[in-house]
Structures are given as C-alpha cells and as structure tokens.
C-alpha cells in the first residue's frame, strides 16, 4: 500500500468529514464520510465549487475563516450551537428527529498558505445539539413552571393580605405563619415576633377555649393584643393537613368597630324611642291636665263669688286627685317601658298588649284609628315584658304613621288589628292594618337601620330595626312582614301584616279562655 493509498484509507474511514478546499471554495478532496452522507461522490464534486452543491453557505463567514486560518497559520472554527452547520446535510434519522439538518462542528486548518489550501474537518454534533436542545426546552419549561409557581405564591400571598381577616397558621399548637393583617391586628411589628407563640397567648381567658369544639364554626371570643388591650373578635378555626402534618388555620375578624356601631345604634334607638314617648306623654297628659285646670279654675271662681260649697270643693279636689293619680300611673308606665328589663319574668301577653295600647291610646284617638283585638286564648310568656312592649309599640306606631302618609290620608275608616294565637308551640302576634301596605321593592329593607320612608318629622329609621333586634336577640323569636289582603265587615282592605312568633317553652303555661 502506497503512502497515498494509506492516506486515502485513513481519510475515508475517519468518522468525520474531510474537505481539501482552496480559498476560491473549489473542492480538491472530499472523503467517503461526506460522499455517503450527501450522496455527492468525490468524482462529482472534484474541482467544482462548493457553492454549486451548497448554495446556502454563508460565503462571507467561510471566506473570513479560511483567510484567518491561513493568515494565522492556526485553525479557525465553526461552533455548532452558533453556526448550526456549514453544509446543509439532511439527517437520515426517522424517529425522535429534533433537527432537519445535521448539526456540525467545523475546524478549518491551514494546509498550504501559498496555494491557499485549507482542510475543512466536519464533525457530526447532532447528538450533542439534540441533548442541548432538549435540555434547553426543559429548562425553558422549568423556568415557565417556576414563574407560574412564583405567580401562584404571589397570588396566594396577595390574597392572604387582601383578605379582611387576620390569618394565622398553627402547627403543633405553635404559630408558624400569619398575614400582614394578623401582625397589625395584634399590634406587632413583624411576623418574627409572632412565630412560636401558642394559641393561649392570644386569648383573654385561655382556659375557656377548647379548640376541638370550634372546628369550622365561627365563634366570638375576647383576644389580647401585644399591649395587653382586649378586643372582641370572631374566630374560625379550620383543621387541615400540610406536608403530612396537622395544622390549624385560624381566621380572625376584629369586632371592636362592629360592636361600637351596634352600641351607637342601640343608644340612638333609645333616644328615638324616648322622643316618641314624650309625644305620647304629651297626648296622654292633655286630658287629665285639662281636668285639673278646669276643676281648680272652677273652685277659684266659686271662691271669688263666695259661692264655694264644701261639696263643690270635695268634688273638684276628688277630680284633681284622680287626675294626678292617672298622671302618676302614666309616668310609671312610661318609666317601666323606658328602663327595659333586666330579667325575664312571667307575664300575660294580652295584659302586655293592653298596657301598650294604654300608652298609645291618646295618640290613636287623635289619629282616628280604631284598634280591633282578637285573642284566641290567654297566653302566658316567660320573657322580657317591657322589651316586648317596646317592640309592639314600635309596630303600632309604624302603622299609625302609615295612615298619616299623604297617599293614604283618604282612608276614613282606619283600623289596626291585633290577633294573638298559638301555633306549633309558638305564640303568634299578628299586627296588621288597612293603610295600603308596603311597596314590594322596600319590603325586605324596612328592618335595616336608618331606613325610613317617612317624613323626617315622623321617623328616625331605627324603630323597626330596634324591633327586629328585640324580637330576634332578646325575645329569641322571629319577626316577619308581608302585605295582606283581607275582609272586615264585608269590606275589602289591604295593608302590612307584622307577624311576631315567640317560642313557648315549658315554663310558659297556656290557659284556655273561659
């Protein structure tokens, strides 16, 4: 084997492409590796220009690299990541094909500077490039997932901080996380201060709380701030599992403001009720005061005329004493009504209603309203006597006011009906009128505080709100309102019907009317 044969054998068996190229890009040698991969034989390409076969070659770059190589007498390179390939060779791979063309690393080595010849070595780097490509794709995906995850975490933190509740996470009874509101609510500066605290450190009376009894259902509790001030709060505890460890998520709403508002409304209602009572008192007192005045004037006149008989004086003084007694009694009634109840007592519902009507008697007469009562049976209640009175008076006042509205002043026969009955172990009080009813669109709003349709001189918007509070919270009953059409004395009427339902318990006795 000659040296040339040996050289050709080596060139044709190496696992890379070998081209002997001149600076005009004319091919002087083309090894077997290239021939089999490009389907261009050495004979075909010999002494031809490389561009005739590969027109897409960037000649500027190739010429520069050849020139540099010859000039420096040192190799120059093509990087497969950057230049992709020198010769566009379609890959014969069928499955799992990432690239259409072979990725190539290329080294251009000077061969003969005089004749401008270089050797171009072409290495198939497809496998490496494929791996790189796959890695890059995965990396991009990973980044995407990482970003999405970051977004999610941000979103959760945003949510946690945007919520109206202070949130705490406890693990093994120790605080492990909270949100900004939680730090703020308890008057701490940073999260760090709260970490590791136990639940009992936040409670006013730590012994009062058995957490296991409160899972999932909100409850009220007094909590302590860092500066030891105590505030009312609504708590909800949720049991959960995080990373296989049981945790408790506690959300807390500060009730201080709500409680203060409630107190304010309650005080305002009291004032409003007092205002109305003064109106009632004025009506109630006019009659007896007239009687006293008339009696006294009469006595004075008779005395001046020297015609005062003992019997006249006795009669007049009797009248004055009766009237002052009446005045005194009304004051007692109002006083009872205003001071409210401290304890539940046993009382008769009909008597309660009679008392309420006596307070309103003068006012109702003045408004020409006829009260029609119907009691199916005597009902004894164990509840707050005066509070129930306040609620009933509020409803009756509301009905009275309804008759004063401009739209219904034409109604001549004004009636308010009070029916009491027992149904399903409940005492039921129906109070309805023929004042035309409440417009449907406001029917569900009339129990809201400060809601009023009346002229300012008539209503404060607190009467029915207070009534709802009394019935639902103190009396533990239900109050509803609806519009009702009914017939009375063969005449058709319609108006609002307030229904108060009070549960009867064992302590309450019902006696049949005899």
């Amino acid at each position, binding site marked *: 084997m000659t040296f040339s044969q040996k050289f050709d054998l080596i060139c044709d068996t190496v696992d890379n492409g070998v081209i002997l190229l001149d600076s005009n890009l004319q091919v002087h040698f083309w090894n077997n590796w290239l021939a089999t991969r490009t389907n261009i034989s050495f004979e075909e390409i010999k002494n031809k220009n490389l561009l005739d076969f590969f027109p897409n070659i960037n000649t*500027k*770059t190739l010429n*520069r*690299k050849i*020139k*540099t190589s010859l*000039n*420096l*007498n*040192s*190799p*120059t*390179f093509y*990087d497969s*990541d*950057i*230049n992709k390939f020198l010769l566009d060779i379609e890959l014969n791979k069928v499955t799992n094909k990432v690239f259409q063309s072979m990725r190539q*690393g290329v*080294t251009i080595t000077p061969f003969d500077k005089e004749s401008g010849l270089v050797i171009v070595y072409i290495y198939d780097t497809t496998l490496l490039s494929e791996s790189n490509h796959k890695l890059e794709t995965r990396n991009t995906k990973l980044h995407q997932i990482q970003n999405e995850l970051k977004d999610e975490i941000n979103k959760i933190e945003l949510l946690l901080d945007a919520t109206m509740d202070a949130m705490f996470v406890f693990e093994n009874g120790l605080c492990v996380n909270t949100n900004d509101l939680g730090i703020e609510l308890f008057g701490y500066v940073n999260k760090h201060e709260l970490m590791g605290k136990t639940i009992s450190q936040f409670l006013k009376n730590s012994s009062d709380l058995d957490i296991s009894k409160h899972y999932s259902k909100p409850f009220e509790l007094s909590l302590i701030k860092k500066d030891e001030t105590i505030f009312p709060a609504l708590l909800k505890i949720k049991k959960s599992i995080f990373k296989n460890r049981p945790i408790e998520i506690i959300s807390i709403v500060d009730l201080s403001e709500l409680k203060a508002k409630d107190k304010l409304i309650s005080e305002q209602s009291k004032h409003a009720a007092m205002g109305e009572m003064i109106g009632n008192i004025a009506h109630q007192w006019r009659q007896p005061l007239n009687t006293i005045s008339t009696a006294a004037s009469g006595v004075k006149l008779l005395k001046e005329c020297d015609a005062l008989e003992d019997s006249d004086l006795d009669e007049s003084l009797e009248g004055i004493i009766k009237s002052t007694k009446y005045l005194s009694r009304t004051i007692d009634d109002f006083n009872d009504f205003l001071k409210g109840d401290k304890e539940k007592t046993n009382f008769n519902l009909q008597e309660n209603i009679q008392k309420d009507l006596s307070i309103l008697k003068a006012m109702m007469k003045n408004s020409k309203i006829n009260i029609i009562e119907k009691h199916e049976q005597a009902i004894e209640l164990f509840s707050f006597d005066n509070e129930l009175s306040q609620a009933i008076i509020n409803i009756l006042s509301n009905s009275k006011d309804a008759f004063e509205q401009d739209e219904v002043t034409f109604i001549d026969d004004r009636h308010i009906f009070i029916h009491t009955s027992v149904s399903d172990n409940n005492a039921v009080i129906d109070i309805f009128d023929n004042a035309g009813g409440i417009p449907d669109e406001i029917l569900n709003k009339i129990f809201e505080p400060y809601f009023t349709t009346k002229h300012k001189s008539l209503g404060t918007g607190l009467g029915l709100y207070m009534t709802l509070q009394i019935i639902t919270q103190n009396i533990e009953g239900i109050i509803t309102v609806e519009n009702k059409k009914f017939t009375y004395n063969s005449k058709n009427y319609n108006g609002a019907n307030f229904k108060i339902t009070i549960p009867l318990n064992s302590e309450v006795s019902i006696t049949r009317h005899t």
Partner: protein
Amino acid sequence: MNTQITLNEDQRDCLQELMNVAYGSATAAISDILDAFATLSVPAISIIDTKDLKAHLLNNIEVEDVHYISSQTLNGKIAGESLFIIGEKSSINLAKEFGCEEDADVNELCDVILEITNILSSATISKLAQEMGTVVSFSPPHIHMVHSIENFDNQYLEKYQKVIVIKTQLNFENQNINADLLILTTDDSIVFIENMLDKILEEF
C-alpha cells in the same frame, strides 16, 4: 508539582518582552484579517493564587451589565485557558467591524466574539509557543453569556495553585470596543514557562 511557583524579576521582564512581541503579531494579524487598525495594550502579567482568581476578575474587569465570556482551551506544553471578556455594546461594535449589519443577532455576535477570541489566542499563544520552541494546539472556543462574574464558576479551579494572568485590552481605531483577554496557565505550564524563560535568558 513545583512548590516554588513564582517568577523572579528577570523572568518576569523576559516574559513581558515575549508577550509584547506576541501581542504585536496578534495586532498585525487582526489588522490584516479585518482591514482595520487594532491596538492591544501592553500586557500586564501577574501570577496569582487560584483561590483569588474570582476576586481578581471582579476587580480587574470592567464589565457592563451583560457580557460575553468566551474561553478556549490550550493544549500542549503551554496548557490552560484563554478568556476573552467583552461587554454587549463593545461586541455590537466589534460585529460591525466584522461587516455585520447594525441589527446583528446574538448568534452573529457570538460568532464574531469566538472568531476574535480564536484570532487573539492563536496569534499570541502560538507566537509565545514558537519563541519557546513548542507548539500549542487549540480546542474550539466556547462562549457563555453571563450577567455577573459571580456566576462564572469553575469547580476544578482548586486543581491549580497559581495562574499566570496576562491581561490586555483590545482597542479598535475610531471604534468604541473594549475587551479583556486573559491567559490562564496551569501549574505545570508555569514550570515549563519558567524553565524556558531561564533558557532564553541564558542565551542572551
């Protein structure tokens, strides 16, 4: 491994002289290839502990926000690595020098940077090797786009005690191109260089 890896004053002077010659030939090669007048600053030579290399790079290289680091492995008696560090703006100007369009993409920029790295290291190291009667073989250069020297790491750095850092700045006439070339050599190479320098010094 030689425990006395250091250069005395004479050796250092001699190496400086050799490097000046080598960089002169590199400048000529660049000017010839690109038809542009490029200058390389007088190379500054220092021998530093490998553990201080990162701090040294941080202190000595003025890098813009994004910069490219291309590295090329040197094989032979003078073994090690050449690092070419260039900022993004300079690399765009460099690409223009190579005849690329204004809106050259990242791949074009990288190609140009790899080319200049190859030219600079070939021209300088080959010349130095030639002066020392040896040959250096160059592996294809690779490029990284880094946002900070901090994330340019080499976990095998501890394999070497010292590196010779030869730092130079490349400037093109009328072009705002600033780049640093560092040649980092391995311990064995330093010993070789030391011996060769002594030989050259003897001949004078």
